[in-house]
């Protein structure tokens, strides 16, 4: 067992990590400095630069390493750091939500990993120990989890928890022999990549290219003068013919596919999901490896997303949300390529049961969805249509009309697929027609229930529903007011009576 009673430093190799980080951060600055000065023969400037480089590149990392310590004291994890501004962070072990192990490219080269401790109350990035040996990190992670669990256990003293704790301890010994619940091979990855939202990938690539374009243009112009003077986007546009447009679209599609493929493989390579005791463990990543361990009882929301392409394969993407801190991005874990059987199993693992058949179901009012869409879009689209008609470009006039009809139809279908289902334990929200989404959350984990409406809905006696959990808020629109009122009261009263720990 690991001994962490005294302040411990990171692996010595972490100095190299800091060196790399600092040099990388300053590289551009130094390049600019060198180009800007121009006169490299001046010995004083060279000396100054060298000293600065040495300090930032060598001494600062060493100091940073030397003063970064962590240890467990009583029931708290203590992290101390800082050379001039000393900082001491104490994290109560029972507050720890999950301990993640990440590894980026540089860390892989150095055989290091970073350990990230997540709590509900702090910004995740601040609690990071960036340079640890893998073995050390693994046992550190387990140590934190064991201690956190035992602290919680002694506080709660619930028999149910104690029982599962025993089961966990048994599990811990044979974690590695566990069969993964889900592991993705190359063919799965290909399937996921091909069913990505390519439009997003394409625009991402486009954004990067445009962003780089201006930088490159800047640099080149600095050295070679105005080579781009005779080059204007307007010229290209004025030469544009149908065939050019088609070629552009083909290139766009091709690039989108490639980007999707690269992103998917980089993110999900070697994906494995396993359950060990009270935790879900996920690992994935090609260049940047990521290992996440989530306590099951701290999961707040489980979501299943799909898109039209994935539906052909009967695949969903599961997203798991834990309690999040204010200001930080929601801490969620994606599980791609869930088959229906897998979806059910996940629900059983996380919530002990999936939604019973005998549930009450509230349906949204699709007409209201369609009406909202029509109201909002009809003004610009009809105006555009009229303008095109006036200029006698009839095709575009028809297109804008078709867009209006299609989006309104889409909104209507979305509304038809929007519903809330409940049984005693779980609340299941679903919405979306082409991009279907199922949100499942236990009733007792609710923090606040909200109903809201705009002034226009009063007469129609319709209302929106919104629930707030520690992992964020989710809401659905356009329900009958009386039904939502009853649901809100029912959920609220269930929460009041619940004694279970919800965070």
């Amino acid at each position, binding site marked *: 067992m690991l001994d962490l009673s005294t302040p411990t430093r990171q692996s010595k190799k972490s100095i190299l990590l800091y060196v790399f980080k600092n040099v990388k951060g300053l590289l551009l600055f130094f390049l600019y400095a060198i180009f800007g000065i121009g006169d490299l023969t001046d010995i004083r400037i060279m000396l100054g630069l060298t000293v600065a480089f040495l300090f930032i590149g060598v001494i600062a990392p060493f100091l940073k390493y030397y003063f970064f310590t962590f240890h467990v004291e009583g029931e708290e994890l203590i992290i101390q750091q800082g050379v001039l501004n000393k900082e001491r962070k104490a994290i109560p072990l029972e507050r720890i939500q999950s301990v993640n192990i990440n590894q980026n490219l540089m860390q892989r080269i150095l055989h290091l990993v970073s350990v990230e401790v997540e709590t509900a109350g702090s910004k995740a990035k601040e609690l990071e120990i960036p340079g640890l040996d893998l073995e050390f990190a693994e046992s550190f992670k387990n140590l934190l989890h064991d201690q956190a669990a035992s602290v919680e256990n002694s506080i709660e003293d619930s028999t149910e928890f104690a029982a599962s704790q025993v089961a966990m301890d048994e599990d811990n010994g044979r974690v590695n022999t566990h069969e993964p619940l889900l592991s993705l091979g190359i063919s799965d990855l290909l399937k996921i990549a091909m069913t990505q939202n390519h439009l997003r990938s394409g625009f991402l690539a486009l954004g990067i290219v445009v962003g780089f374009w201006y930088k490159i243009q800047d640099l080149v112009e600095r050295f070679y003068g105005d080579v781009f003077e005779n080059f204007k986007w307007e010229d290209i546009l004025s030469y544009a013919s149908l065939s050019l447009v088609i070629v552009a679209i083909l290139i766009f599609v091709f690039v989108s596919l490639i980007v999707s493929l690269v992103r998917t493989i980089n993110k999900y390579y070697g994906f494995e999901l396993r359950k060990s005791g009270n935790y879900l463990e996920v690992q994935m990543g090609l260049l940047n490896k990521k290992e996440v361990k989530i306590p099951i009882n701290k999961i707040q929301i489980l979501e299943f997303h799909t898109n039209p392409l994935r539906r052909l394969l009967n695949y969903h993407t599961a997203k798991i949300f834990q309690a999040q801190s*204010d200001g930080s991005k929601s801490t969620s874990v994606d599980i791609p390529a869930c088959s229906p059987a897998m979806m059910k199993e996940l629900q059983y693992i996380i919530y002990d049961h999936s939604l019973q058949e005998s549930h009450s179901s509230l349906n949204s009012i699709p007409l209201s969805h369609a009406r909202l869409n029509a109201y909002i879009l009809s003004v610009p689209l009809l105006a555009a249509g009229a303008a095109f008609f006036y200029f006698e470009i009839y095709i575009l006039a028809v297109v804008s009309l078709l867009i209006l009809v299609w989006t309104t139809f889409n909104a209507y279908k979305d509304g038809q697929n929007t519903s809330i289902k409940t049984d005693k334990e779980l609340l299941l929200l679903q919405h979306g027609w082409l991009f279907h989404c199922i949100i499942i959350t236990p009733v007792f984990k609710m923090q*606040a229930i909200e109903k*809201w409406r705009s002034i226009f809905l009063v007469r129609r006696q319709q209302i929106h529903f919104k629930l707030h*959990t520690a992992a964020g808020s989710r809401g659905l629109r356009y329900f009958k007011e009386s039904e939502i009122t009853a649901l809100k009261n029912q959920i609220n009263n269930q*929460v009041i009576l*619940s004694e279970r720990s919800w965070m």
Partner: protein
Amino acid sequence: MTNDQIHAIDLPAVELSDFKRHPKRFLKKKLIAKFLFFIPLLIAVIVLGFIIEEFWIFWAALGLWVFLFALGLFISYKEYFVRGYVLREYDITYRHGWMFHHETTVPFNRIQHTEIKDGPIDRLFTLCELEIYTAGGSASDLNLSGLDPEDAARLKEYIAGKTVLHA
């Protein structure tokens, strides 16, 4: 003392309770704050009138200002009458907003902490704001603005007493 079994279904609905309104001076404060907000815009419009030769632009801008100002005052006035809170044995409900009306219920066993705040205009009217924080993001926090300081202190005390039972 009784110890009857309680079922969630038997607990009363929030809609049956009386919502307590904010003190009348909160309405005054709101209207004055709105007026103060619109003064810089009015100055901008007048300056515009001096700079620009064409008169109709000035009149149009002034008309727009008057319209927005009247709308702002109207909404502030309307909002006062739909704003209110209910404190019950195990939860607090707050409703606010006229154009977009919200009603949020937070049970005491989900409240993390509370805070009382006031600004200069608040102090002028002896008002203050009670903030009720829950865990996670800030979306579910309640802001009860425009309370009587004594009421707010009592509310805070009451909620603190309730939440400590669940901590």
